[in-house]
């Protein structure tokens, strides 16, 4: 090889590797990495894809403005298929491969719970995710975590406050899937309903993945509630419940929580979906009220973006704000410092992603609004003001 000895060749190869590697390392050292165990496939895939887009767009906005204290943000993520073991494996892989990973997005309640001791041990990261589980709203035991919206119990509280105002003394039925997700707010919300003078006349639990709900509809007809609140579902079996309830002449109003509130999934349901209501912590892509950040999103993406997008976008915004406030104070990016910075957020303007200034007093943003689906317009329309359930 051009008279070069093996030793010389190896020395040249090693030195050239160093020459190319050193600038790359120096360049990456300034970045702040958001890690992500994202559910891009599987049962929650529809949300994961939108969440990733939302996080990426906010990162793009921040980086175009020069980053945070000159440090650019980057999302490093992998698909988990919404499997806890895979989420943990992705976490371990990403944290070992990326320096300066101080922020993380997790895909489920189970992952949030599983990884919490590791977050506490590391002490250099805060995490949010797709879970709005009530148990995560515990600033003591889940200190490195937060929820970019109300937890499920707070979502129910927002719905119940709306109902108590619209129809005092109303009769309710809670319909929940027999999953951790579905059962989350039952006990706490039953107590809250009582406090508000509402009567929970029945609770219907459906097995995970239930398709035919004929027997549950018959129970609903027996109870004849004014409102039926569904939780633990994305779409099915809600349309079938609503179809059969109409066939039976029930005038029950059907409500849901955040993950059932994307208007695009209701589009194909048609007229039956008309009147479906639920709690939404963020504005919709197409909301017409003044919102400069929504306007910017619409410029970046001219087509409708799902509710998961808004959740991802706001999560990245709150994470960035916590990092910015920590660095403003000249502190290290530790879990404790970033969480304290997060809790210092008071009356923060999200640019209209949420319609009122928000605060993060604990682990949640306890605010939301009731929207109702208009099948004619194929849009969710607001039917209440923003309701805060901060204690």
């Amino acid at each position: 090889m051009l008279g070069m000895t093996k030793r010389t060749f190896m020395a040249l190869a090693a030195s050239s590797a160093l020459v190319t590697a050193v600038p790359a390392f120096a360049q990456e050292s300034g970045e702040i990495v958001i890690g992500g165990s994202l559910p891009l496939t599987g049962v929650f895939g529809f949300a994961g894809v939108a969440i990733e887009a939302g996080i990426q767009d906010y990162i793009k906005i921040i980086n175009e403005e020069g980053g945070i204290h000159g440090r650019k943000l980057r999302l490093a993520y992998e698909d988990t298929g919404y499997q806890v073991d895979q989420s943990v494996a992705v976490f371990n892989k990403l944290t070992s491969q990326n320096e300066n990973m101080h922020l993380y997005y997790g895909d489920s309640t189970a992952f949030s719970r599983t990884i919490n001791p590791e977050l506490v041990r590391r002490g250099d990261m805060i995490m949010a995710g797709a879970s709005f589980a009530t148990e995560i709203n515990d600033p003591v035991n889940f200190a490195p975590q937060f929820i970019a919206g109300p937890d499920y119990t707070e979502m129910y509280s927002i719905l119940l406050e709306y109902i108590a105002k619209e129809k005092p003394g109303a009769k309710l039925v809670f319909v929940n899937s027999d999953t951790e997700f579905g059962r989350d707010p039952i006990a706490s919300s039953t107590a809250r309903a009582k406090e508000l003078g509402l009567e929970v006349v029945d609770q219907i639990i459906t097995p995970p993945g239930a398709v035919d709900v004929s027997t549950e509809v018959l129970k609903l007809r027996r109870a004849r509630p004014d409102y039926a609140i569904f939780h633990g579902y994305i779409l099915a079996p809600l349309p079938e419940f609503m179809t059969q309830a109409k066939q039976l002449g029930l005038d029950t109003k059907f409500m849901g929580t955040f993950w059932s509130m994307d208007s695009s999934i209701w589009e194909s349901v048609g007229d039956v979906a008309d009147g479906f209501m639920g709690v939404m912590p963020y504005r919709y892509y197409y909301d017409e009220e003044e919102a400069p950040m929504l306007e910017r999103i619409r410029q970046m993406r001219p087509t409708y973006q799902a509710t998961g997008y808004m959740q991802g976008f706001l999560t990245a915004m709150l994470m960035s704000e916590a990092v910015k406030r920590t660095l403003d104070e000249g502190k290290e990016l530790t879990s404790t410092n970033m969480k304290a910075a997060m809790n210092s957020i008071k009356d923060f303007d999200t640019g209209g992603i949420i319609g009122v200034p928000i605060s993060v007093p604990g682990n949640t943003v306890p605010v939301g609004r009731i929207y109702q689906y208009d099948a004619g317009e194929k849009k969710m329309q607001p039917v209440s003001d923003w309701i805060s359930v901060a204690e």
Partner: protein
Amino acid sequence: MSDFVFFLEICLAGLGSGALLALTALAFVLIYKATRVINLAVGEILMMGGYFFFTVAAGMSLSAWIAIPVAVAGGMAIGAVVERGVIRPMLGEDPISVFMVTVGLGSVLVGIVELVWGTDPRTLPDFMGTAPVFIGEAYVSRKIAISFAIAAVVIALFLTLFRFWRGGVALRATATDQAAAYSCGINVPGVFSLAWIISCGTAAGAGVLLGSIGGISPTMGAFGLSALVVVIVGGLDSVAGALIAGLFIGLLEALTGTYLGGEYKLVFTFGLLIMMLMIRPYGLFGTKEIERL
């Protein structure tokens, strides 16, 4: 409304759900009966049927009466391709290997659905109407009533075909003794293909019915597991067993869900499965020498 009418309504709803389970279980039975292969991808083929219907009825805005045959034909095509391309080259291999191939096939089909149609849950265009059905005073969901009628007709048709049609007799002969069937001039590979094609077409049809009730999504294949319980209880190689066990489990789930709570449905269903495997592992109507995997 009297308690008796309510009880009657619950029973009718349970029988309706059970008919759907029985129809899906039939897809397991047909393949097992002919080839001794447990096709764990039945749920995913059922899902493909729902998506084929969705593509034609919603995507192309064609009539449901065109979309249904297309969906069934799509399922049959999958059956033919899988049998000829994947299963037949594995003839003679360890049953566990073939079983695992069908598990992999299910994952591949889910991946294809996510790539082609995306991960959003979707609703199928309504083709069954919305007028409620009453039997006397008792209400039955229209979709469930229609699904029950279709499942009953299809199962009755299969029972008749197995008894009187040459192809059905050939399938039974192959199931009993492949070597003897060969020596009698029966085209055994052809019977295998036929079983896969008919089975997957049946699963795809069940997918259309199921999708019309609960919508479609890449996870709807999980319904196949419920049907697997039915075939284990009824007997892996018994069409009548699939029907009777399907109706029984539908009824059991409806009654436990109503009177004990939805959280008890799966407890009772899988409790029954365990009990059956302990007492009568070949199922209520299955052949005794069936090998358990």
